[in-house]
């Protein structure tokens, strides 16, 4: 590349590209107003080339936050004692667990759990709805309960025993009834704790009050 003009143009392209890389990578941490504005301009380029790992909050691996613990989806069918865990047969520590697929499921369940914990019911309900549309044609029922469960790990220096059976250490953080209505449409009704439900005044039929 002896031509000075070509070299200058390539240099300019390199500088602009690396600037986009920098903004894309570092714009996902604590972000200033300036960064936000620059990022908005560069977003199409950064996202198109996957320079902006928008959903990737995983470079730090862990900060011991609850949403970083392992999660799982469970489908509880009416009358069945055991819930069906998703992905079926791929959750255990087997050969599959060494691969990208397990990591993908782990990421999906963790992020859905985070949305549920943040109260983003609409995004979680979309997952439950889509799961219902996939599962109902394969099931004999018109109703199941969708659950998101979160693992509760013991502290390193705590006194609690390390559980031998990890499945018992899951806490259910989200429950929703998924229903197939008479029109063939899937509906999702989130279950809430009694304290969270809208409170109604006690009434009696006699007085109407």
């Amino acid at each position: 590349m002896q031509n000075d003009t070509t070299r200058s143009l390539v240099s300019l392209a390199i500088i602009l590209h690396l600037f986009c890389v920098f903004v894309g990578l570092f714009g996902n941490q604590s972000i200033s107003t300036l960064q936000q504005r620059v990022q908005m301009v560069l977003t199409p380029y950064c996202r198109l080339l996957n320079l902006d790992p928008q959903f990737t909050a995983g470079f730090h691996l862990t900060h011991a936050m609850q949403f970083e613990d392992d999660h799982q989806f469970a489908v509880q069918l009416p009358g069945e004692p055991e819930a069906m865990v998703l992905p079926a047969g791929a959750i255990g520590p087997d050969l599959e667990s060494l691969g990208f697929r397990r990591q993908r499921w782990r990421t999906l369940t963790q992020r859905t759990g985070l949305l549920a914990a943040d109260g983003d019911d609409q995004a979680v309900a979309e997952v439950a709805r889509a799961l219902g549309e996939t599962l109902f044609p394969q099931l004999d029922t018109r109703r199941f309960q969708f659950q998101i469960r979160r693992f509760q790990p013991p502290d390193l220096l705590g006194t609690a025993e390390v559980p031998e059976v990890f499945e018992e250490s899951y806490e259910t953080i989200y429950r929703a009834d998924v229903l197939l209505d008479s029109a063939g449409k899937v509906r999702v009704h989130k279950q809430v704790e009694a304290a969270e439900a809208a409170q109604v005044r006690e009434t009696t039929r006699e007085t109407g009050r």
Partner: protein
Amino acid sequence: MGRLQNYWQGLQQHAGFAWNEFWFTPSSVRDLSILRIAVGVLALVWQLSFTADLQSWFGPQGWLDSGVVIEWNREQVTRTFSGRLSFLWAQQPAVLWAAHFAVTAVLLSFTCGLFTRATSVLSFLALLGYVHRAPFLGGAAEPVLTMLVGYLCVAPCGRYFSLDARRLRASLATANRLPLPSVSATIARRLIQVHLVMFYLVMFTTKLAGATWWNGEALWWLSVQPLVPSPDPSFLRSQPVILNFLTYVILISEFGVVMLSGNRWFRPLALGASTFSWCILAGLAGTWPLSATMLVANLVFWNAPTGEPSGTK
């Protein structure tokens, strides 16, 4: 005033010379050809790992449908162009299978070095198609993998250890020429190196934002998760000092790559520590995908022994 002018002139000359030497010194493609094979194998494993979930996620009855993706990308759909393009949208199962295995064939050709110029670009576009179909499935490994394939498009990385090389060998022999060092190889190698160092910098700085990497407990929280095929948690818990030590080794090794990978004497030490820490993370914390991707990416810092001048110092 004259001294200031001289200073600026000297600085410009020095910076310009260093810049040109760094980015535009022709270098061998041999090490990038080795990297192409490693990256190609990794990309194949990554792409084939979608096979089991392809229809249940992306098929016409798949549950990662447009409703889920739009709801999870609420901020993006307000834009004219979100930057997300994919060929894996609700298609007939047969078409989806055909597209999936066509990508496998492209990645295989790229790995073997068949029509490398074309297949490297196609491989890059194909990987982006999977990433953009459901970006919330991606972890930390995906941006590194697409970065590697993307920059290999710039270099003639099919010049060695490839089917292209076998085809070209006859014509080169008749012309009595050796493959020449390439400027585009240097540019590709440098882009990978700089981008990789930025990844390490992000990994290091984001870790410092949390207490677990300061108090040495991070490796415990990673290894105790039930989906991780790691040693007995009770045994690990009885060795808190070792867990603390290994946590700090991981942290320091990332800082080491950022600071020392540009120095020819310290680079082997930094890369050795990095290799050790990625193996520890894979073994104890189950981060096999990310560890494998980073170990492959680290190859860009190793100079392949060759008779041609190398791009790294």
